[in-house]
């Protein structure tokens, strides 16, 4: 049997091409998955950072403990997500590199979570508006075809249900408390409302991951979110804001002016003392 060298060459080329195609697909999928994880984890990272600012400054010792605990839970979740992202990146980037060494435009958290702790009403309103979304999101993420993500979701649900109960209770207490607290809570809800719509926007990575059965289709969570939030606000004797003007940009890395200062603190040690272990 004679072997045609040209034939071998052609078949080798075809194989290489096929492998190249597959590896591009794998890379694309990995890149989408990586970005998808960042989109989830950045919310917890930035909100955790905000809640961490309050430690020791709360209105009561019990709320202080609860806010610290929320921060602790969120950072615990962040670690799980970024450890997974680090594995997917596969280029030696660690959880801390991902958390602390990106540029401002590379953080893709929603604008809502970076809003400052103006007062306790803002802090609880921000938490509530995020928690209701977060809980619904994790319930869906549990069904993800990606087993790591579904495991992280299952573990986080317990914590986030507690956050949601805590922040909902405070929205009710402050809304239906005194006249002063009602005014303050209404102001906070009105101010933060503009950041809620962005929770339901989809990035390219979101769409790709939804198509793979890995990601959550957040557009489907929107109606029940506004229904639930509105019911609770009414119970708290608060007005549901009517404004239809919403802000967006966080998911594309275009943030409010607040984020840069937060990153200055978050990244301070890693930037000042590069390549060291702590």
């Amino acid at each position: 049997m004679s072997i045609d060298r040209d034939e071998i060459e052609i078949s080798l080329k075809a194989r290489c091409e096929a492998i190249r195609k597959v590896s591009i697909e794998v890379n694309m999928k990995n890149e989408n998955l990586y970005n998808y994880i960042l989109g989830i984890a950045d919310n917890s990272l930035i909100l955790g950072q905000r809640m961490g600012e309050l430690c020791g400054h709360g209105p009561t010792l019990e709320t202080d403990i609860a806010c610290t605990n929320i921060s602790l839970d969120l950072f615990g979740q962040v670690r799980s997500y970024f450890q997974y992202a680090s594995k997917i990146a596969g280029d030696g980037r660690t959880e801390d590199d991902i958390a602390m060494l990106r540029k401002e435009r590379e953080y893709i958290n929603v604008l809502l979570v970076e809003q400052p702790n103006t007062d306790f009403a803002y802090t609880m309103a921000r938490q509530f508006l995020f928690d209701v979304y977060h809980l619904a999101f994790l319930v869906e993420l549990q069904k993800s075809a990606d087993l790591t993500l579904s495991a992280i979701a299952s573990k986080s649900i317990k914590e986030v249900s507690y956050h949601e109960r805590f922040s909902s209770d405070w929205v009710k207490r402050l809304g239906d408390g005194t006249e002063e607290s009602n005014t303050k809570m209404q102001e906070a809800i009105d101010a933060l409302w503009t950041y809620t719509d962005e929770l339901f926007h989809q990035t390219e990575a979101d769409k790709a991951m939804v198509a793979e059965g890995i990601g959550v289709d957040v557009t489907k969570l929107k109606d029940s979110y506004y229904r639930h939030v509105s019911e609770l606000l009414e119970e708290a004797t608060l007005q549901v804001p009517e404004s239809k003007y919403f802000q967006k940009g966080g998911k594309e890395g275009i943030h409010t002016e607040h984020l840069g200062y937060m990153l200055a603190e978050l990244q301070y040690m890693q930037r000042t003392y590069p390549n060291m272990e702590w």
Partner: protein
Amino acid sequence: MSDEQIKNLEEQFEARIARDEKIEPKDWMPEKYRQTHIRQMSQHAHSEIVGMLPEGNWITRAPSLRRKVALLAKVQDEAGHGLYLYSATETLGISRDEMYEQLHTGKAKYSSIFNYPTITWADMGAIGWLVDGAAIINQVPLCNTSYGPYARAMIRVCKEESFHQRQGFEIMLKLCNGTPEQKEMAQDALNRWWWPSLMMLGPTDAESIHTEQSMKWKLKRKSNDDLRQQFIDQTVPQADILGLTIPDQDLKWNEERGSYDFGEIDWDEFWQVVKGHGPMNRERMKARVGAWERGEWVRDAAMAYVEKKQERKEKQAV
């Protein structure tokens, strides 16, 4: 009650303590016992709460996620210690609000160590290692103190404090095994926290008041100077493991005593800080009073909400 009867009760009371029985909130106790315990326990509770501030100062800047989580958990533990100590003190018939009032007006004290600033990350290591370390030495004997609720709170607190101490030492160890810059940061922190940590164990025996009575009630089991010696003897070998130098030229092993000799403590500095003129006294109080004042409308709202709910329930019941 006649003086005779009171004297009788007091004798029985002291005898119970001598037999190592616990005094419980409902038991009769001399007024002085109650007041002394309120003072010491609330001071301890305040220290836990004010102590959250210097460490809370580094939460947003912790160098890694792992350290951030550990620091948050530690500060949360301290808040928890404050909570059970306040609850234990409330069993003596004082409310938490009254205790806060005493803290905010400066009537009640808290541990002076928290009036020093935390200026580098290494301070998180030094505080865990030295400050929690000294706190344990102060507190372990209190696990057997005569007042039941205090003793029980201390057992729980001490377990967590020893975890904090190991965690602090581990932060230092990582720095000392790191780059020269990191090791220098660790040495600098030790230099700044060493003497204040020694002061944490209280004034020298010659200047210390209330000691005898406190010994009888098991609020104190060893003198301040003995506790300090114990702390030094325990800590110097740990500094050796780290490869750090204790900032005391007179520190020297004394073969005869089986202990370290050490240099003169700057008691002027100690009293200055105790009297409210340390580097951070104003800031710490400003933070606590500020949090309390900014929180007033929140607490009022929570109260009003509960009352409204109660009213509605009653109306429904009618």
